[in-house]
């Protein structure tokens, strides 16, 4: 249905996917990644006593080189650009990063 034809049209918010898209764009800019690089965002539960209950995991899959993984110890919807930058730089105590081969 076209928004130009329907006066009652409104675009609904996309919630979790919209925030994940923002987070991916922050990663893409910070790491200067091209559009072909796959960035995936996951929100996982962690019930270990010393960990926060939710962890956001970012996986960067590049054609050349190993997959890169960054963690933010917050639920996805609680993350902001600063969290992403700290996770990428590995400077945050609330974030960790690493490389892995899949």
């Amino acid at each position, binding site marked *: 249905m076209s928004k130009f034809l329907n006066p009652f049209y*409104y675009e609904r918010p996309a919630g979790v996917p919209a925030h994940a898209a923002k987070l991916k764009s922050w990663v893409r800019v910070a790491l200067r990644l091209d559009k072909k690089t796959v*960035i*995936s965002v*996951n929100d996982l*539960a962690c019930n270990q006593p010393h960990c926060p209950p939710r962890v956001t995991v970012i996986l960067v899959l590049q054609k050349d080189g190993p997959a890169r993984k960054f963690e933010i110890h917050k639920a996805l919807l609680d993350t902001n650009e600063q969290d992403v930058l700290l996770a990428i730089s590995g400077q945050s105590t609330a974030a960790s990063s690493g490389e892995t081969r899949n």
Partner: protein
Amino acid sequence: MLTGFLGSGKTTLLNELLASPRMRDTAIIVNEFGSISVDHDLIRKGSEQYILTSTGCLCCTASSDIRTSLYEMHEDRRQGEIPAYKRVIIETTGLADPTPIVNSLIPGGAPASSMGDHVVARAFRLANVIATFDVENGESALAEHFECWKQLAFADKIVLTKTDLASGAGWRETLRRINPSVTVLDRNSADFDRASLIETGAYSVSEKPEDVLGWLAMEQLEDPVAHNHAHDVNRHGEDIVAMSLYHDAPLDPHAVDMFLNVITAQSNSGLLRLKGMFALADDPSRPLVAHAIQHRLHPTVRLDYWPSIDVRSRVMIIGAKMPMDPIRDLFLSLKSKPSGRRTLGA
């Protein structure tokens, strides 16, 4: 695989599919979050259809669990214990993360860890993923629950439900942004062909969003969470809780009505889903079926008879950050009350 968030109409759609003569040779695996099965009793099973119920969320258990269920089905058929089938429909829980289930059923996914896994890989092929999406409650599900996004992103076809209760305007565009290759169908559309949902090809991730590729890649990493311990088997976190409650004796109809209304009264209580069957004192042979999705209690239905030999009242409640103890206490305090007719007749 039939998936979709809590209360989005998976079982209703499944029942409609099974009503078709073309689906006669179908076996069903129903997975329910929580320790009791209510949906299993509400699926209309034909004499030539076989249902295997598994409680405990498939996505939270080892990835080979779906293979275990399929292997069990395969062996039962081989030994002639169940009717022949051409296809299997796996109905996931409403909270299921499809990633480990898909990963265990596609070529190149989770490696086989047993002879049974090899048998399953030869005998079964994931054909397609169908997701139901409730246009009435879907906005909050998609806003707050990662699993809802994943279910939609993995889908080949999304079936919009409850379009008779709320407008689906705008959702097609939103869903295609999430999953550009998906086919969006309206369950209430005059031209909705349920049979078209069933395909015989092979599920492919090649046209799925990059998120799907990433989630599958993450699934295949040895350590999905990098801080030196494996990701917990409960993907939904401790804030999502399922509680199952039983009563052996028939209950006072007014007390059940009060219980359902109290549980669903507050929109911010954290209730995600309630489903139950109740034996009522006025006619215990005709169970009352109740469904609530978030705080919306759907009109209750009185069945003509119990669908299984289990005639206990039972209710399953799933909530997020929901205080379960007061609910349990309230349910257990419900008393059986002799009906007026019985009292008069005594």
